[in-house]
Structure formats: structure tokens, C-alpha cells
């Protein structure tokens, strides 16, 4: 007779990480859930309110507008950064001394703290003293990102593209470097055009890393806070108030803890849902 002796000591090994995750994610999230169904007028006195805040947030025009801006921002930067990143990765040298130069240059924007990026672009784009702002105005273009919503949006998108395209480049480049020479040689012999090489060799081999790139860029840009906060503070008016900025305004500006908590949960669920959609669509048709 054989008895299966289960060794329970394994749990001890995962315990530290369970505690860590509990403190850093699960408990805060539960606090948020707790707030989202209660009303408080201070003094640590809470009243149960059910789904009232959720209904309020979902029906609020302010939330709809912020969500609209957020979706516009995220899809715009994805549409620019993913193709641009792939194009840059394709033009980067595959071997030789320039490889490391390119990689370092590409990594630089990623190494800069986010608030510094915001501050840099803020100064860079100022119409009176900034290099970009002043040059544009000198060229006769009426540009002032602190007053004009369109200018603010252009600057915001340019800043994100500058900051994050590198990540896509590095991931795409890693995907490209994993393609053995034999594929290119076979394609040459088969008489494939460079478009066919891209379509049938490079793109399929990059697919996995591009899936990761799209997911990372989607989640990060949907969560973006620091850079637009430093650059425009959500203005002019509310024109660049993205979801996270709106959330902070609600929670810390107005101290509306209940609605802010409900908004956080809705925000989280939207990211989860859209990430799932992206992942499912992009990995569709992959066997095994």
C-alpha cells in the first residue's frame, strides 16, 4: 500500500511573498472596497451606502469625460509608439560597434525619473523660454500649452512618445535578434521582397514581444499620472485631466473618499477587462 505523504513545508517558502503581496496589494485594495460602499463626514464615522457611489460615478459626466480623454490618450500613443518602435528596431544595426551605442541611446529616456520627464518637457515647451515653445512661436506657429488644449495634447503625446517608444524599440529589437540568419538567407533564396520578409518572418517572430509591449504600454499609459501632472496639471481647464488625475482630485482635492474608491475599482476593472481583451485578441490563433 502506498500512502502519499504531502510535504506542507513548501508553503513556508511562499509565505514571505504572500505577506508582501497582502500588505502591498490585497489589504489596500480591500480598504478601497470598504470605502467604496460607505459615506463619511469625518471623525472616522462611516455609514453604509451600498452601490450608491458606483451609480454616481458611472452616471457622472465628469467621469465619462475623463475616461474618454484617457481612452483617446492611450489609443493615440499606442498607435504611434508601437509602429514607430517597430520601425526604429528594424532600422537599428544587427551587429557591430553601433549596436551598443544605439541600445544605450534607446535606454536613456527610460532611465529618467518620471517627474523629471514632466519637468523637462514643461520647461522645453514653455512658449517664452523653452527651446521647443520659443522655436515654434518664432516660426509663426501660435503655440502655448498652458492655454491651448490642442497644444497641451500635442505636448503630452509628444512627451509620452519620447519617453516610452524606447521600450517598444528594445522589446521589438530583442524579438528581431532572436531570428536566426538562416531565415533571412532562406527568404533571399526564395526571392522574398523586404515586405514579405517583414510580414512572414519578422512580424511573426516579434509577435510575442509585441504582445507584451502593447500590454505594458496600455496598462502604463492608462495609469499615467506623474508626467501629465507635472506638465499640465490636467489643464488648461480639464482638457488634459486623465483618469488618474481626476481620481486624485476627487480623493485628495475634494476628500470624497467614497466616490474616489468606487472610481478606483471601476478604473481597475476597466484596465483588467481591456488587458484581457488585448491579450486574447493578440494571442488568438496560437496553437499549443
Amino acid at each position, binding site marked *: 500500500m502506498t500512502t502519499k505523504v504531502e510535504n506542507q513545508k513548501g508553503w513556508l517558502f511562499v509565505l514571505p511573498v504572500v505577506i508582501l503581496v497582502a500588505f502591498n496589494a490585497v489589504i489596500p485594495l480591500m480598504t478601497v472596497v470598504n470605502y467604496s460602499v460607505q459615506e463619511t463626514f469625518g471623525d472616522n464615522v462611516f455609514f453604509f451606502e451600498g452601490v450608491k457611489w458606483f451609480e454616481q460615478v458611472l452616471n457622472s459626466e465628469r467621469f465619462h469625460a475623463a475616461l474618454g480623454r484617457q481612452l483617446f490618450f492611450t489609443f493615440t500613443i499606442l498607435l504611434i509608439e508601437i509602429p514607430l518602435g517597430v520601425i526604429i528596431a528594424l532600422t537599428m544595426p544587427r551587429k557591430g560597434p553601433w549596436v551598443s551605442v544605439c541600445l544605450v541611446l534607446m535606454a536613456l529616456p527610460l532611465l529618467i525619473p518620471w517627474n523629471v520627464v514632466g519637468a523637462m518637457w514643461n520647461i522645453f515647451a514653455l512658449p517664452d523660454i523653452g527651446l521647443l515653445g520659443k522655436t515654434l512661436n518664432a516660426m509663426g506657429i501660435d503655440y502655448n500649452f498652458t492655454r491651448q488644449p490642442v497644444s497641451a495634447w500635442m505636448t503630452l503625446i509628444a512627451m509620452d512618445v519620447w519617453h516610452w517608444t524606447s521600450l517598444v524599440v528594445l522589446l521589438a529589437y530583442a524579438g528581431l535578434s532572436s531570428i*536566426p540568419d*538562416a*531565415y533571412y*538567407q*532562406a527568404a*533571399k*533564396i*526564395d*526571392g*522574398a*521582397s523586404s515586405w*514579405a520578409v517583414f510580414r*512572414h*518572418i519578422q512580424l*511573426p*517572430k516579434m509577435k510575442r514581444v509585441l504582445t507584451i509591449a502593447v500590454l505594458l504600454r496600455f496598462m502604463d499609459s492608462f495609469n499615467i499620472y506623474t508626467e501629465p501632472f507635472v506638465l499640465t496639471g490636467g489643464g488648461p481647464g480639464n482638457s488634459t485631466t486623465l483618469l488618474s488625475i481626476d481620481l486624485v482630485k476627487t480623493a485628495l482635492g475634494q476628500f470624497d473618499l467614497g466616490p474616489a474608491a468606487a472610481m478606483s475599482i471601476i478604473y481597475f476593472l476597466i484596465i483588467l477587462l481591456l488587458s484581457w481583451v488585448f491579450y486574447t485578441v493578440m494571442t488568438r490563433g496560437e*496553437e*499549443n
Partner: protein
Amino acid sequence: MARITLDNLRHSYLRAPKSRDDYALKQLNVAWEDGGAYALLGPSGCGKTTLLNIISGLLRPSEGRVWFDDDDVTDLPPDARHIAQVFQFPVVYDTMTVFDNLAFPLRNRGVNETVVKSRVQEIAEMTDLTAMLHQRASGLTADGKQKISLGRGLVREDVNVIMFDEPLTVIDPHLKWQLRSKLKELHHRIQTTMIYVTHDQTEALTFADQVVVMHDGEVVQIGTPVELFERPKHTFVGHFIGSPGMNVLPASVANGAIHFAGIPVDVDNPVDLTAGQTAEIGVRPEFVRFSDDGIAVEINKISDAGRYRVVSASADGHRINLLIGEDQDIPAAGARVAFDATQTRLYADGWLAGEGAGQ
């Protein structure tokens, strides 16, 4: 279909090669007859792949010309040379079906779709891929993928030569034999020149009519498997082909008499060497036998290989291998060996004496 001539070919991967050692290929003159089955055999790093890439046009030689019949193709790109190449690791276009993979080279050349269809069917039937035509290529096993690579080469009717760069490396042992017979069968059927690169002598000797042996950037011998076995032109060939390889022993030559360890040895090609040349004698283990008089040896090891035994002996500090049939006795002590004079040869500086270097 074409005869391929390599004319004074040299290649170096360095921009400014100085010494002979800087060349990956050193002075090559080889003609590949139309319709032949060739194997290019040599150890890793001897220049086989370099040579293959020069023929296919993936690499431009530093010096020399490549001719397909009377056309100088040295400067032509691979797709203009009408060649096919099967690589060490299977190359398939993952996102396409097997059918689309096979059709790819034709579609790239703008071939009419009805022609594509009939041609792909024909090739699929030849390579046993018919049942899988509408599957995704990425789902096939390694040998299936190699068949697709091969099929993409065969599908064009104007192919001058099909080259195989160690194509069985990733194939399971029990399928290697199958795929090799398939290649042989296909060669008989389509009569296209095939060049098969390998470092495995069994693969080379079973596949090819002519084996080209390379060593250190040079072609040391071109011959049928039998010629390579019976009359190696270079000690390297003798050593590389055969299991165990040829015994190569230092010799001294004086007044037409050849000595090993102070004992005179009869050889098939007694020639006087010029001063300064290193003399060696080569004799295959198959042609060494125990005898009553001869060279005294010490027996070190006997390995049983089934129908015969490999006896590893030594004389004067040099190892001599013998193949002994299972019915023959191995002397217990005081063993002496003799060489079959018709199969014992003198080598000068590694090359068969009296024939000199080159082919």
C-alpha cells in the same frame, strides 16, 4: 540545371587578410558536374558552410569566380542564381500553411496560381506532405519542417542545385535514415545536382556518388567513397574516414628504403622524398594483421565491435590499431604485426607521396 565551377576561389572574413591563415577558404578549384550527388565532408570549422554560402550567393568570395555553366554568377544575388538551400535548422514560415510555404518561392516570382497549385501538389506528393498541406507549418515535427524546407527548394523547376547544410542535425536518429533515403530517392527522380554538407562520414558516404573532403579551408580529396577509403590522398582523409581511422606512423626514407621504428616497411608507392619533407606511412587498421615476424607491438586494449575486434596496440610509442575478425586469435605475448604492402602508403608532408598536393 548547370555545371558549377569554382575558379581559384579564396575567401577571408577579414577585410585585409595578410597570411594564408587569414583565409577561411584557401585556393579552391572544384567542378561540380550537372546532376551529381555530392557530399562536402569535413570537421566543423573547415570552411564547408562558407563554401556553400559562396555557391548560393549569400556570400561574395574575396577572390575567384563562380561559374554556372558558362555564366559568371559571382556577383549575382541568391534569388537570381536559381538555387535552393536547406539549412541546419528547419526554416518554415510559421504563420503560413504547408501549402503556402511550398507556394511561397513561386508566388514571389509571380507564377500563375493554377501552375502554383499543380506544382505544390506534385512536390507535396514527392515529399510525403500531401496529408498536411492545409495544416499550419509551425505545428509540424522537425523532420516535417525539414521536408517543407526541401519542398520549397524543389518546387521551382529551374533549380540548378540544391544544397543541404547538415540538414539532419535536429532530426531524431530513427528518422535520419528515412529522410536520407528519401533524399537519395529524390535525387534519382529529379536528377538535380545536390550538394550535401556534413561532418558525419556515414551520411556523406551513403548519400553521395562523389565526396569532397575539406580540411582547414582546402579541398584535400574528391572521390567516390571507395576511393576515399582505399586510397586517401592525404593523411587527414585517411584519419577522418574510417572507424577507427587510418594509422599514420612516422617514417624515415633513405635510399628508397622506408623504415618505421628501425624496421623496413614495404609500401605501395615507394618514392624518394626531397630533403626537409616529413615522411609518414599510412595503413588502415583493416590491413594490419598479426604475424610471426614484423614489428613488435604491445597490446593496450581490445574492444569488441561485434563481428570484429578493434585491437589498440603500440610500437615505439606510436599507436597502431588493428581490426581482427572474431575467429582470429590475438597473441597473448610477444605480438608482432605486419602491414599489407599493397595498402600501405608513404605520405610526404601529409600528402600521398609522388602525387603532390592538390586534386
